[in-house]
């Protein structure tokens, strides 16, 4: 606590950062707070709460809260509801802000200013931040900030949140701001003092007075959209993009994967030599290094996938894809908005399920949540990659396509089509009513490499944390289960066969034999319940222990040896559907507010997985004649 500090009733002033979606608010938040951020959830809901702190040049401290983007305080989504409640001081456990920092996109004042006028009626001190002024100038939009400030009756500052130093003017303005604890906030009903139409007229009057467009630069976004949203070219571009991503996930990741594999192998040997033979050797080399290594190797693929998703999001392509797909989604009773949560689910179902909050209609939202785990999440990739490498020849088909990439594409499509079928089935039983879409297609902009890489780093951290904690624990536990009790005298099978894990696996084998799974797979499925990618590590452990092979050896050739093609493909089919992820089920329970739906989800997905694996197994057997 500095001496210089001005306080409001003995505490650091709290500033709420508020604005329309797509106004660059979060970039500004990051610019202001740097790494001084706390991300948590609002109590009782799963909406992200981002708070940070910063010091102004004069040495004053501020707390800042980044509120979810909203078009209006007349909330239509849970996110907007949070923003409304927090800013109006109606949310239990949240302090009402001392001031509002309203962020507007300078290239789109006509839409953004309406919210500013609405917020003003709450009677809190406000500063208006004109973000993206650099882009506005380039487009020939001249904003007279002095005039605008006079019209709105609040300070107006220009910022460029994506440039370092772009927030300087804002900090200086905050220093000039008198904070007064006696300010009383008006009741929320004050926002309706003036009709929407009247407010819009006021916006136009202010724009006419303070903004002039000097030159018509032509709208690049519109030119791009002419192609991207074209009835014929649009879907082709979308399909090509999706396909490119899947090809990239497979072809670009090769080199780093080989490097990681070699590194893990070398480490295993090095540590193995240090330890000598014995139980500790077995735990560290066979259990931990082999298990964790076989999961770690998929980090490159996960990062490549996330790279594309974050890139498309940053550029502004994702809402366009939702627009193009709205009709297809609508045909099974989903909103085009459901595309975004479902696409996120390709990375991981947990953020996907959480992103379903942007769907206003509760029923639509529930259906979207229920099908999200059918999207192929990145945790399935390790399993897919392993099985594809083992059973699908690496050859070129149709002149330029990699057969392994084609199979991966088919697996993704299987998940998507099944999700559509399930959605249709769930909707069929309810009255079918069309939902409003009202989805903004924001202007395209160049991706921000900084934001992109920090996003990727975030994902890598989450993955490595999981490898480091949950997966490591599972590996050690599995090793314990697989090593004790040891093999009896004169055993004919590898030791794991006689262990606790072996017993569980053999018990499950009875159920899983009809779909072609052997006891090694059955064992791997047990820890695989915690997280899908663990199954690969578990297989690594099972085979390192039962085959006695060198750790770091590729699993793929080993399973290609020991399983039939039918078993491999059946396991792939199983993984398209099986609910192998407790964290997702927990998220579903939390998001839907009841465990019922988590159980329903687990039940229907297991059912689908079993049926699909059974069909694939039998059909492949019939074809291969095994």
């Amino acid at each position, binding site marked *: 606590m500095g001496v210089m500090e001005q306080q409001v009733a003995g505490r650091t002033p709290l500033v709420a950062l508020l604005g329309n979606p797509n106004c660059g608010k979060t970039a500004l938040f990051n610019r202001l707070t740097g790494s001084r951020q706390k991300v948590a959830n609002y109590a009782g809901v799963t909406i992200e709460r981002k708070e940070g702190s910063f010091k102004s040049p004069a040495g004053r401290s501020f707390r800042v809260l980044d509120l979810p983007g909203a078009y209006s305080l007349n909330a239509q989504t849970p996110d907007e509801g949070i923003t409304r409640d927090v800013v109006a001081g109606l949310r239990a456990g949240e302090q009402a802000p001392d001031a509002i920092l309203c962020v507007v996109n300078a290239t789109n004042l006509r839409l953004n200013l309406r919210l500013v006028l609405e917020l003003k009626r709450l009677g809190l001190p406000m500063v208006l931040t004109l973000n993206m002024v650099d882009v506005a100038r380039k487009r020939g939009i001249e904003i007279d900030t002095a005039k605008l400030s006079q019209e709105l009756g609040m300070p107006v500052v220009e910022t460029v949140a994506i440039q370092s130093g772009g927030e300087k003017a804002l900090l200086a303005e905050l220093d000039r701001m008198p904070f007064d604890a006696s300010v009383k906030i008006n009741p929320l009903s004050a926002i309706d003092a003036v009709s929407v139409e009247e407010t819009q007229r006021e916006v136009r009057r202010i724009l006419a007075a303070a903004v002039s467009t000097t030159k018509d630069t032509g709208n690049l976004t519109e030119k791009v959209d002419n192609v991207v949203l074209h009835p014929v070219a649009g879907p082709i571009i979308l399909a090509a993009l999706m396909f490119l991503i899947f090809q990239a996930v497979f072809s670009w990741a090769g080199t780093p994967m080989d490097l990681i594999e070699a590194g893990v192998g070398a480490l295993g040997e090095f540590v193995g030599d240090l330890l000598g033979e014995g139980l500790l050797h077995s735990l560290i080399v066979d259990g931990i290094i082999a298990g964790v290594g076989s999961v770690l190797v998929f980090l490159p693929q996960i990062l490549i996938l996330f790279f594309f998703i974050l890139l498309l999001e940053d550029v502004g392509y994702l809402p366009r894809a939702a*627009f193009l797909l*709205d009709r297809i989604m609508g045909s099974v009773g989903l909103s085009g908005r459901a595309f975004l949560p479902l696409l996120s689910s390709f990375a991981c179902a947990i953020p996907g399920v959480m992103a379903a909050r942007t769907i206003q209609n509760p029923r639509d939202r529930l259906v979207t949540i229920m099908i999200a785990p059918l999207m192929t999440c990145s945790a399935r990739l390790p399993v897919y990659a392993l099985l594809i490498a083992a059973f699908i020849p690496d050859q070129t088909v149709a002149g330029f396509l990699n057969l392994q990439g084609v199979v991966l594409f088919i697996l993704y499509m299987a998940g998507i089509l099944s999700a559509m079928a399930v959605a249709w089935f769930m909707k069929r039983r309810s009255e079918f009513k069309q939902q409003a879409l009202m989805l903004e297609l924001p202007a395209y902009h160049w991706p921000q490499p900084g934001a992109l890489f920090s996003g990727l780093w975030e994902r890598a951290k989450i993955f490595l944390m999981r490898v480091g904690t949950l997966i490591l624990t599972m590996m050690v536990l599995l090793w314990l289960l697989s090593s004790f009790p040891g093999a009896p005298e004169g055993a004919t099978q590898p030791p794991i066969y006689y262990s606790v894990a072996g017993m569980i696996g053999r018990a499950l084998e009875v159920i899983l034999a009809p779909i072609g799974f052997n006891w090694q797979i059955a064992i791997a499925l047990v820890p695989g319940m915690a997280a899908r990618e663990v199954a690969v590590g578990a297989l690594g452990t099972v085979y390192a222990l039962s085959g006695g092979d060198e750790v770091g050896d590729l699993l793929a050739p080993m399973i290609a040896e020991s399983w039939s093609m039918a078993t491999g493909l059946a396991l792939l089919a199983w993984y398209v559907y099986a609910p192998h992820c407790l964290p997702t089920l927990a998220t579903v329970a939390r998001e839907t507010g009841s465990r019922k739906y988590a159980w329903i989800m687990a039940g229907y997905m297991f059912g689908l997985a079993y049926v699909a694996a059974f069909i694939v197994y039998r059909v492949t057997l019939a074809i291969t004649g095994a």
Partner: protein
Amino acid sequence: MTLAPALSTLDSLKAGQSATVVQLAPHAQGGIDVQRRLMELGFVPGERIRVLKRVMKGPLAVKVGESTFALRRFEAALVSIKVD
């Protein structure tokens, strides 16, 4: 006397056509006041709008002011317009 310009609704516009908003029909659904939200987004009487693209049997991309919004057919049908 000139003929009064044709009145129709936004969902009948072709891609590339412009019009002026005349009024919005009230419509509430699942607790969402669609009419009010459309007005908040800029679809107010007197506003010039233009349809950029249409997806066959699907939504329309409509430019209003500096923004573009995707609307489903039934939403667009709430907006009465005067075609230019």
